[in-house]
């Protein structure tokens, strides 16, 4: 079937099988490999992207379900911030990306795209969270390297609410 999705502001229309998962649509049909597949079973959050601004797990959605919606992936986040005039830092990134960079909120980086997307969605819903709210708000994202401390710090920094 033909599936059309606005991905990072660009119309992506591809002929895919009905059973194509959103994550495969993004990685294989659109060539956007920033979105990772970790567990492939809805648990780890590595595949987190935004659908109409909300964090979702793209391994647990069909591309067909999302046809007609707006998707943002990690590749589109900085452009979104640039358009909104909120980008920051030497590389002109999204504030959350810059904050992850400044706080060294990653080691291997595998969880990072999903973690950043989930964190942006969290601050959208809770603009100045407490540390506990950050930890709970990221419960859908697993990191096997960092022990989470610098990730939590980065999200608090980005919210302007760091201790």
């Amino acid at each position, binding site marked *: 079937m033909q599936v059309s999705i606005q991905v990072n502001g660009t119309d992506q229309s591809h002929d895919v099988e*009905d059973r194509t998962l959103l994550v495969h649509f993004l990685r294989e049909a659109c060539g956007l490999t920033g979105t990772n597949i970790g567990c492939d079973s809805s648990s780890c959050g590595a595949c987190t992207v935004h659908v109409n601004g*909300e*964090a979702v797990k793209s391994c*647990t*959605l*069909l591309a*067909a379900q999302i*046809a007609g919606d707006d998707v943002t992936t990690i590749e589109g986040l900085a452009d979104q911030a640039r358009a909104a005039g909120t980008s920051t830092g030497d590389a002109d990134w999204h504030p959350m990306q810059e904050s992850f960079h400044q706080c060294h909120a990653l080691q291997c980086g595998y969880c990072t795209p999903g973690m950043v997307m989930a964190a942006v969605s969290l601050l959208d*819903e809770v603009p100045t969270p407490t540390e506990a709210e950050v930890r709970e708000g990221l419960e859908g994202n697993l990191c096997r390297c960092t022990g989470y401390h610098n990730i939590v710090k980065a999200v608090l920094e980005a919210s302007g609410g760091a201790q």
Partner: protein
Amino acid sequence: MIPAAFEYKRAASAEEALALLAEHGDEAKLLAGGHSLIPLMKYRLAAPSVLIDIGRLTDLSYVNDGGDHLAVGALTRHRDVEINDLVGAQAPLLAAATRHVGDPQVRHRGTLGGSLVHGDPASDLPSVMLAMGATMVVTGPNGPREIGADDFFTGFLETAVNEDELLTEIRVPKMPDAGYSFQKFNRRAQDWAIVGCAVVVNDGQAGVGLVNMDSRPVRAAAVEAAVASGASPSEAADAAAVDVDPPADLNATVEFRQHLARVLTRRGLEEATA
């Protein structure tokens, strides 16, 4: 993991969804948020040949004041229930339990109706429906009918909703002044409950629904009767594992579940009556 091949159809209205169900019979499955069904299909535990997507039926996503109850559309997503002011004021137990469902990403897509029709004894929200005495409205070829929570959950992953029917609305009695508590025991954030319980106490009457204590979502009737006859929370909670048949699995033995049910029910009753 990729689901077995199927044909995807998006229903534009409840009528169209029912017509597609009638046309495709038991080959077809409704897809709401997909957060129970798609994982099952990826594991090939379900392999419908037609998927009827009802996720866009926004006219079935609402929370309305129905007089003595709140009318919640079956396609209302967990996140929308969680932050709804009417739910917070009139059925705070439902809001509290919904916050425990999965993680934010899951709550952005999963629906209340999907969670109930899935009929999983480990799900959080059926226990709330039992505790609060909710009524489910389903519609099919012969028009709408109402099913009380006690008659709704009929077995493991089985409900009273027939294959040609659609759950459209959940009617939750308003209980603005009731004491309530939702207790969930698990080992990791985001996980399903090893055991959980939903408690409301209104005018000395308790409603208690248990999570993961039988092959289907069940009410702790013996606890409710004990509260009605004046037992204290700890006395009443002793009956939490009476007449239920909990599963044993990697997380817990039968005895551990029985123990958890008593402890969580006591905590729930204490919090609800504090």
